[in-house]
């Protein structure tokens, strides 16, 4: 289509449109990228010098000290480790569980299919809400535990639907022939279906991983009093949010401790270095998975 269009001679109006369109999109790119660039250069600038202001696209006094400095914050190191752990464990368990359920639902001969799929889809339309959810976690004794990061969000109906619609596209004869060779359903799932689903699983894995990595509210709600279970996003929130939490004071959880007090005076460059540490892992991973998730979204669009 593109080549055909190019063959037809462009009119003056078309050229005008192109110029405006390309400039507009370029401005959008700059507006999207600049804030990240600014954060990066401030994090690479000497922290006392930063106070003078005026740092836009290039560090004035280049240094890596801010990054070395934040490695000394114990909470940040713990937070980083916990964030990595919850991302890895949560993603592996989550994707595996969701793929397994999707597989059973993709089997037209499975008699529990209709019930289970309705049961799952219903959860997309209602939820108990914030307080009942909180009470449940409390009653289950999951406050102050690492598992609160993994278990409540393990199964997502939306992800299951996406994986399932991919599986529906696979030829059923593959499963039949495996069955004839004596494989049971789990073996079929694990040995045949899982490897074939790599593109969609990569997409879902990215969604789950990003969700895990970016999550801070569960730490705030359930684990804010336990320094060993803190996460990177939560620590960043505490550090960036030295003033803004005032309106939403939470009597139990926002007791400022000595360390928070210290955080309140963190220089700009240090804050920006911490921001970069939470952003970089995503920036490194996502361009590689991009083509998968566009496929995934397109599929979702068609299925809707």
């Amino acid at each position, binding site marked *: 289509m593109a080549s055909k269009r190019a063959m037809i001679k462009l009119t003056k109006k078309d050229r005008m449109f192109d110029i405006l369109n390309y400039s507009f999109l370029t401005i*959008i790119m700059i507006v999207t990228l600049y804030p990240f660039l600014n954060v990066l250069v401030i994090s690479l600038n000497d922290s006392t010098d930063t106070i003078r202001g005026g740092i836009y696209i290039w560090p004035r006094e280049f240094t890596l000290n801010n990054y070395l400095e934040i490695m000394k914050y114990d909470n940040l190191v713990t937070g980083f480790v916990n964030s990595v752990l919850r991302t890895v464990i949560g993603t592996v368990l989550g994707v595996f569980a969701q793929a397994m359920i999707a597989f059973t639902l993709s089997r037209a001969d499975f*008699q529990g299919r209709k019930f289970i799929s309705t049961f799952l889809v219903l959860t997309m339309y209602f939820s108990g809400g914030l307080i009942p959810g909180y009470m449940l976690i409390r009653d289950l004794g999951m406050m102050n535990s690492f598992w609160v990061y993994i278990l409540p969000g393990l199964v997502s109906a939306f992800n299951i639907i996406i994986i399932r619609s991919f599986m529906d596209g696979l030829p059923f004869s593959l499963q039949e022939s495996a069955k004839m060779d004596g494989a049971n359903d789990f073996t079929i799932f694990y040995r045949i279906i899982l490897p074939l689903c790599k593109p969609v699983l990569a997409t879902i894995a990215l969604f789950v991983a990003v969700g895990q990595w970016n999550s801070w509210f569960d730490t705030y709600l359930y684990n804010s009093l336990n320094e060993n279970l803190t996460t990177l996003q939560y620590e960043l929130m505490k550090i960036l949010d030295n003033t803004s939490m005032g309106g939403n004071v939470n009597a139990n959880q926002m007791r400022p401790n000595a360390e928070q007090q210290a955080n309140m005076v963190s220089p700009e460059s240090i804050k920006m270095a911490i921001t970069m540490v939470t952003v970089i892992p995503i920036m490194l991973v996502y361009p590689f998975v991009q083509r998968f998730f566009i496929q995934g979204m397109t599929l979702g669009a068609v299925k809707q």
Partner: protein
Amino acid sequence: METVKEKAITKMNLQKKKDKKNGFWKIFLSQKTLYMMSLPFVAWVFVFNYLPVWGWTMAFQNFRPGRSFFEQEWVGLDHFIALFTDERFFMALRNTLAMSFLGLIVGFTIPILFAVLLNEVRHSLFKRTVQTITYLPHFVSWVVVAGIVTKMLSIDGGIVNDLLMKFSFIDKPFQFMAQGTWFWGIVTVSDIWKEMGWNAIIFLAAIAGLDPQLYEAAKVDGAGRLRRIWHVTLPGIRPTILVVLILNIGHLVSIGFEKQMLLGNSLVVDYSEVLDLYALNYGIGLGQFSYGTAIGIFNSVVSITLLFLANGIFKRYSNQSVM
């Protein structure tokens, strides 16, 4: 591909009918692996998604933790009455609706416009670069976005103030984050910055599915670029637009509280407190679980009503339904 699948399904259905004589349990046993693979998660979903709904009963009690269900004191609709007579509740409701409608209008139209413009780009490298860059903020947490927005709008060294001053639109830095009236706008714009590219994917996919011949025909008829967009692209993606619109309307009230909580501060609280935050502050912050639950129920009821309403309207004007 579709027919092969359908054949397989009909085959399965025939098989099922035959098996029906043998009864549920016989099939159950023959499919025990499939059951073993899914039932644990059904139980899991029951615990984490269905049990909390049972917690709605709290709204009709003076809930005290530690007591059993039968020892709770039942108070009927007292908490709802208290809710509807509280001024802060209406403030939170106003803020919720204001921000969700703004988000709906802007956050819905701009991605369409963006997708349409992006589709007009012929250089695939440029197109891909724009896409890669505009998707990026979607993957960053609201914590980071709130930090960035605060930084960009800050009075010392924020680029927005610096630019405005450089071009002499203002004489001294403007305190964006301290103006209650600006808060809704700041949330909406931040949301656009974060999600525009991402939300455009679905429209780009829909545009890609349009028949190129339509464009050729329009061109032969002498339609320029804008007319082709207006008469071919937009009508072509109308079904997608409608579906996304309905889904967005369904989520109108449940806009969450992340942005408001992270971007808000004590100076703008009258404009930043949304229903969920209100529930959070009263319910968990002050330990009034029953009252907080009542707020949550109100929230859900309004969401579901809006969803059905939107779906009803949608059904009337097209023969499709999203539910």
